[in-house]
């Protein structure tokens, strides 16, 4: 009996020691740093520069932070550098990105690279601009046609439902601009007083847009222009500068797209009467979130329409609009 008790005690001590060792081991495992297994998401903007892309990037960064993703932001220097963007897509697929968020600088030309990327197992989410590929996981952006109609409606209201107007886009190849234009034309087709005098394309350069607008404004034949609808930030700023310089601001109504700092300045100054704004922060956030879901083989919506708003100098400092117009930075 005594011997039994002694044995039991010995066994007990051994087991207790084993338990202690086990816990000690598990502690050590916990202390080891976790290897970086974060997903790599690449955001390829049309351009690395510009307030609009910067705000998209901020949104993407917020999502990346929230979901623990490593985000790489890249893009060409100029918005129309399609070749560079194609190259970047191929490059990041080769680097082993887990997902790509792409603001395609060309609707058709990037389709093949997108197809290739998806075929190699890298899901692609389109943001801001669509791509002619049905392998895209999702598109996050505004309905450009509807935006066009909203902007056209605003200009009609400003101009009193009649007049000759200039539509200022960047290029006939730019799908966003073309859809906006289509919306404008459709909106005005119901208003007999509203006519499109000219459609101009001035590329991504502000100065080119400015000079084109100035020549149009100064060329008063057969009749002076009553308003301008600028389809993107560069065109809007160029047009605003041209109007201020020719002293026609206020008389020639200007409805813009987007909310770059210059545009907001011009909006407050009253040179731009209204601007149709998107919510690039939300776009950036949702695109990364969606890309992650796609990379995890979850079902994602094929298309997510983000909000648009028409803001004029009156409403731009309304609390709600402030929040959308001005990115919150410290």
């Amino acid at each position, binding site marked *: 009996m005594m011997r039994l008790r002694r044995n039991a005690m010995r066994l*007990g001590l051994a087991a207790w020691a084993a338990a202690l060792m086990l816990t000690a081991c598990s502690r050590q495992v916990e202390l080891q740093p976790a290897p970086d297994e974060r997903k790599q998401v690449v955001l390829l903007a049309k351009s690395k520069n510009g307030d609009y892309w910067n705000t998209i990037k901020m949104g993407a960064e917020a999502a990346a932070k929230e979901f623990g993703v490593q985000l790489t932001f890249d893009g060409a220097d100029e918005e129309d550098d399609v070749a560079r963007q194609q190259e970047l897509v191929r490059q990041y697929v080769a680097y082993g990105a887990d997902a790509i968020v792409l603001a395609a600088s060309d609707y058709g030309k990037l389709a093949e690279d997108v197809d290739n990327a998806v075929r190699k197992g890298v899901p692609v989410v389109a943001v801001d601009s669509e791509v002619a590929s049905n392998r895209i996981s999702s598109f996050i952006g505004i309905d450009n046609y509807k935006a066009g109609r909203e902007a056209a409606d605003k200009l009609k209201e400003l101009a009193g439902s009649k007049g000759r107007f200039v539509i200022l886009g960047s290029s006939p190849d730019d799908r966003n601009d073309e859809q906006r234009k289509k919306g404008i034309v459709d909106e005005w087709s119901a208003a007999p007083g509203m006519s499109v005098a000219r459609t101009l394309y001035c590329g991504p350069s502000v100065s080119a847009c400015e000079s084109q607008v100035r020549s149009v404004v100064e060329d008063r034949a057969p009749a002076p222009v009553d308003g301008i609808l600028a389809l993107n930030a560069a065109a809007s700023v160029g047009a605003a500068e041209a109007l201020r310089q020719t002293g026609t601001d206020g008389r020639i109504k200007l409805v813009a797209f987007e909310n770059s700092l210059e545009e907001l300045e011009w909006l407050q*100054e*009253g040179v731009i009467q209204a601007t149709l704004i998107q919510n690039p922060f939300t776009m950036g956030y949702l695109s990364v979130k969606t890309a992650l879901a796609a990379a995890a083989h979850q079902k994602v919506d094929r298309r997510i329409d983000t909000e648009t708003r028409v803001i004029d100098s009156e409403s731009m400092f309304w609390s709600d609009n402030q929040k959308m117009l001005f990115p*919150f930075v410290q």
Partner: protein
Amino acid sequence: MIGFRFRRYRFKSIQFLIAVSFAAMTTAVVLTVSYVLYDKFTRTAERNTFRGNEQIIYQVTKNLEYYIRSMTIFFGEVENTFRQDDDPTGSRLTDRLGTIFNTREDLVTIALFDQSGRELTALPSVPMRSNTQLTTQSWFRSAVENPNHLSFSIPHVQNLFKGQYKWVVSMSKGVKLTVNGRETDAVLLVDVNFKMIDDLTSSVKLGQKGYAYIIDDSAGNIIYHPQQQLIYAGIKYENVEQALKYTYGSYFDDSTGTQRLITIQTVQNVGWKIVGVSYMDEIGATKRDIGGFLVWLLALALLFVLAITLYMSAKISQPIKRLEKSMQLVERGNFHIAIPIRRDDEVGRLSRRFNLMMGRIRELMDQIISQQESKRRSELEVLQSQIHPHFLYNTLNSVVRLAGTGKNEEVITMITSLSKFFRISLSKGKQIIPLDDELEHIRNYLIIQKIRYKNKFEFELSASEETKGLLAPKLILQPIVENAIYHGIEPSVDEGRIAIRADVREGKLRLAVEDNGVGMSPERAAGLLAELPGSEGAGIGLRNVHERIRLNFGEAYGLGIESEREEGTVVTVWLPVRREGDSDDAAEA
């Protein structure tokens, strides 16, 4: 070893009972202890989280209060500077303030406006924008409506000066100044950006994912949130309404789908509240950690207890099993076993008792056997003594007849023989007598019988030299000879002859009784000694002798019968070679 034991595990064994009850008891105890520990740990973890969060938020509140106080003091200093200067709008003062302004990262604007919103002086020194709607802005209105009260605005975009659109909190106050010698109502504005607030607030870590944000006490506007842009974009949502109900304290909130611990503190003087948010699933992770640890502990303890129990129950039940095996052997009739006693425990004592009991049983059995033997012996002796009266009666009848016919000589021989016969029969009560006496006894018997049967047979007695001085049980030859006469000689028509020989063969004393009577079939001869229950008569005398010998001397001795029809019979008696003076315990029995 354990596996081997397992295979022999039976469900109704003590081992099983012990193992199961021990395991169940230990499981119950360990489970209870684990549960209590788990409960205690998680409660402590939760309470620590509560307390930790409250302390952190309290600290942030103090820091923020300190910052706001310093800003208030700064505002007061600026106000005093303007008030005491006789030219508050002059460039000298602007330069002085500009030095301070440039050293502070958190300052966006220092500006002075008159009641109509006209700029009196301003830093930064850049042109004002048109269309600022300044007089409608909330900071301006509250300064005009509540002069001499420093008010803090909710975050808004400052749109006054060219080149920047910055999110700020405006501090404003309606002040009376002497401008150009005239007393003027003016509004003093100091805009502060979120750098310091962000520094103070975003450094807060409430667990892995937790954070703190600031709301305005009156309307619940979010002043600052680490994910302000997400809130502004409508992607994120905070349940501000509930936070507004608290001045300080903690509560659980699951309006966002996940359970969160909300901790609230109010910042003095500005009417702001700091709301700390931490995620309960992180505490859940701690719970899981603890739970996992306890599960391990439980498994280990159970394993340990199971091993101990197996060992112990085997230790206890194995001796019992050994005991059981021994008892099975006893059941099968083996009484000559003793269990080895290994330990002085209960089972050891039980084994000893068992051994004692076995000894007692053996003793009792021996006793019963000897009792039975003596009973038989006495029975046989009774039978033996029954011979005499019958024999005496017959003999005396014959003497009377002889005397009647005047055969005196034969009468004398007969009486003499009878007297010798009885003397030896009595033999002082001894059961074992010298062989010579036995032979003498049978000679007298034969003499009497020969006279009675009118010399129908002859007899002879012979003993070899080595039989001299040997002992033999008394009266063993008489029943044999009697049989030979009655069943062998009497029915025979020929003249009979009986020969009795004594010699030593193969270390045994051999007595042979030969007759030339009618004999019998060898089968009958063989069956004569076999114990046939209820068979009385012819064989009974022989069988008695046979049994008496065997009882006294063992199986090696007894009778042998050889017979042939019409030839005669030889009955052989085998006895041990014993001499006078030998141990005579058999004689005593």
